[in-house]
């Protein structure tokens, strides 16, 4: 069963849920741009936060993992970050959510989901993001050229 984090601040009510807490901390740290700059960016950012806690954390079995990677790969085809051109909280949390999945992928699969791999590699090298997580090795040269 998934455990739900709770934030107990010194001077106020507690806050429950990963994305709610993360958004709260971003505000506290005066990093509001991480929540999106425009209404649209904010909404897209929020959507991927929800995706993280419902789809990525809730996935069951190989097939669902594959669907997640396939959909993300498709989505990231023409994007640098999840919310488009700006780095947001969504990139951080989805990166953390995908880390165990990416670690398990074979080289061939990483190449198959090339846009996810590119985005993932970019985020894990973003200053201060990776923290304690081991880096996932990405090949610079394609090994399986006739893959798809």
């Amino acid at each position: 069963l998934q455990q739900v984090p709770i934030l107990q601040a010194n001077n106020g009510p507690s806050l429950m849920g990963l994305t709610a807490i993360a958004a709260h901390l971003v505000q506290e740290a005066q990093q509001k741009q991480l929540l999106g700059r425009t209404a649209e960016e904010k909404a897209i950012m929020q959507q991927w936060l929800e995706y993280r806690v419902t789809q990525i954390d809730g996935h069951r079995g190989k097939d669902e993992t594959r669907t997640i990677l396939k959909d993300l790969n498709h989505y990231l085809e023409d994007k640098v970050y999840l919310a488009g051109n700006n780095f947001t909280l969504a990139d951080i949390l989805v990166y953390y959510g995908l880390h165990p999945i990416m670690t398990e992928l074979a080289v061939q699969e990483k190449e198959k989901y090339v846009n996810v791999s590119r985005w993932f590699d970019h985020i894990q090298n973003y200053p201060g993001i990776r923290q304690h997580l081991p880096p996932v090795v990405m090949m610079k040269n394609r090994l399986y050229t006739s893959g798809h």
Partner: protein
Amino acid sequence: MRLYLTEGNPHCLKVVAAVELTGTRCELQFVGVEERVVPFLSHSKLPCLQLDSGNYLFSTNAICQYLFTLRGKEPSDLTNQWLEWEATELQTALSGALYTAVVQGKKEEAAGTLQKKWTYIDQSLTRRSFPYLAADAITVADIVLWGALYPLLSDSAFLLGDLKALRGWFERVCAVAACRKAVESILKGKGLQGLKPYLQKQPAPSQRAETPTSNEPEGGESADRVLTEEEIRAAADSWSKGLSGWPKPKLIQHPVLPQPNEKNVLITSALPYVNNVPHLGNIIGCVLSADVFARFCRLRNWSTLFVCGTDEYGTATETKALEEGLSPQQICDKYHAVHAQIYQWFGISFDHFGRTTTQRQREISQDIFRRLLERDFLLQDTVEQLRCESCQKFLADRFVEGFCPFCNYEEARGDQCDKCGKLINATELKNPQCKICKGTPVVKSSKHLFLDLPKLESRLVKWLEDSMVSGNWTPNARFIARSWIRDGLKPRCITRDLKWGIPVPLEEFKDKVFYVWFDAPIGYLSITANYTDQWERWWKNPEQVQLYNFMAKDNVPFHSVVFPCSLLGAEDNYTLVNHLIATEYLNYEDGKFSKSRGVGVFGDMAKETGIPADIWRFYLLFIRPEGQDSSFSWSDLLLKNNSELLNNLGNFINRAGMFVCKFFEGRVPEMELHDDDKRLLAQATWELRQYLQLLEKVRIRDALKCILNISRHGNQYIQANEPWKRIKGTDADRKRAGTVTGVAVNVACLLSVMLQPYMPSVSASIQEQLLAPAQCNVLADEFVCILPGGHKIGTVSPLFQKLETDEVESWRKRFGGQQPEEGSADQSKTEAKPTAEAKAAAPVAEDAGKGADPQRAKQLAEEVTKQGEVVRELKAQKAEKAVIGAEVTKLLELKKQLVLAEGKTAEAPAQKGKKKK
């Protein structure tokens, strides 16, 4: 901005309410449930919002929040928390509850699963003492939660009891105009039921959680099950009761009839079509599955009637009769006997195995027909068809050829032209020709009768819903039946211009018979009527009888939609199907069974392998395509026989019996139960109960695993207690050896009863070896001591034989693909033939399009001359016809090549050659 919605989709409520409340200007577009709007998602996700930038929002909560943000209402910590809780916690619970309540119709059960969530909301509201979830005024959180809860909370079945805060809040939000409008546009006044069409198309949440089944057993879960002290004590108590209070097996007296106040089970297996020898897939799909269930019901002392028979009318029988030069009746007689023999060999325990070409069938079919006619459920219409006068036949599409009406291609078929690809109506063909006799068919219009399914639809839907809620329909059967209804019912023709069938009892239609699909299922009734005059006590008795139909999934539409419509329309209080059990397909070595290609094992061949029928039964049931397709594989058969039967089940039963014979002179020793023994009894009891539950739900394959689990526990028990060592030890050790042996042999006896539905002969031989009392042959949910201390057993011998790899390999060669004779002959032909043919054959395809090739032509001309000499010489020697024939063929082939190489048109001679063959 454009918002994509679907009617009856609960997720649309909050989005529409948010649009209304924020007064956002946005285009609403309703689309189909399964439509994929968001380009990057593999599955349909609705509702979704397309922004002016072209981006999509597919999360309902993000859409709502976005609409609020546009109005300057930014999220707060509290609204974020509610939105996240709704998406992660509440939705998971809701999707399950909605499915249970709406699709399965179990509202109370659904309400029960939600109590905790409701309490959580209620407490949050109380603690904060706001009228709304996150503030004094309405926020995005209220809209999101209200939208999620509305479908259930608005239904009277979901009482909130004393959750005052939640109730107050819900009523407050419901009163908001925007919410009322959302309800109106999404549910259209249909309430909870309005969601049904949408929910039916979603995967069942509970089933999604289950792991898919496969050929492999789900290893040892139950072995790890922790038994409670109570279970162990109860099992030991039951055991000590012995057979004294045990129910007596009900004596079966024919005719079996339903009894008032008892469980009465009527079982049918889809009627096999008479002109085919059934293959293993047919056998597992219908008769064998039904047989296991029938035997199980009898072991439970329920009044059980199991009927089946051959389906004998129709064109296919007529064609087969022409082929074999017999009359249709003779064909039916011949193949009915073939079927009966095969099923007898497989040990299928029909109470009656009948056929559809009987007087009773005619009477009952005509009666149902008349009743439908009187009640105005039949329509008349004219159909134009090509008829060949010399063959006396209306020609089906592919039995007629002619000139294409569009492009004048000469060999267009009755349904399509291969040249221009256009679809053709057979009557439009120019110069039509009967494919059988080459005669010219004429267009004849023919009147036909149609069953008015649309008129019966509302009755059908009502009955179907009831039956699916109260009965046990396999998921594929539910799905297929629902998709038929969803796609809309059309009138179905019930008459045919044929001879071999039941005559339509109307003067106007005297040359016509019923279409087989109309009368074939009536066979169930007529076969019962041939078994007993009191057949109506089974078939017009829906109050007392539970009807189970067994079939493969391709038969579902007839049993769930078409036949029930006939019976509902006839209005004669017929017993309609309560439980529709459909299997998926069984493949053969990962391919399809095919009679024409000689691929697969057919009923009559199984016997020839020398493998006993019970082994076939076991393996087929072990891989029964329950929930998904499965495949028959020879190496898997060997594996399952040697591992599950020989090493597990057979080994345990044999050892238990052998210990009694060897160490205790054939008498069951006195037993004094220790904890270890009681634990085994409790384990066996638990598996027994699982087995009963699973079989009641007709999960035949899963129930078989319970049997194997018991013997696995038994083997571990013997291994851990080592009676063969203890028997040589102290008095206490010897006593212990006695108890272990006695318990083990009783478990073996229990297994013989549980095994009976699956392997009746093996079950009988175990009971014979153990001299088990006949009274043990009743299944109840307790495991009692059947063979008490002092009971004398008979001679024990091994139950199963090992299958060897080379043996199985030779069968695989024999039954897989081409017959070996043909295969090897083919090979020798290619090898023996001189290179001339190989050379000649190769260029066919290449040269066809290239036109002239003078060099090649010259070479071929020489070869033709040479070959001509060979033929002449052979003829002069008066050689055997076959030998000459082969050389002539070669010659013709060379000539054909020559023509091509000379650049003449290939078609004429090539065609000629083809036809000669």
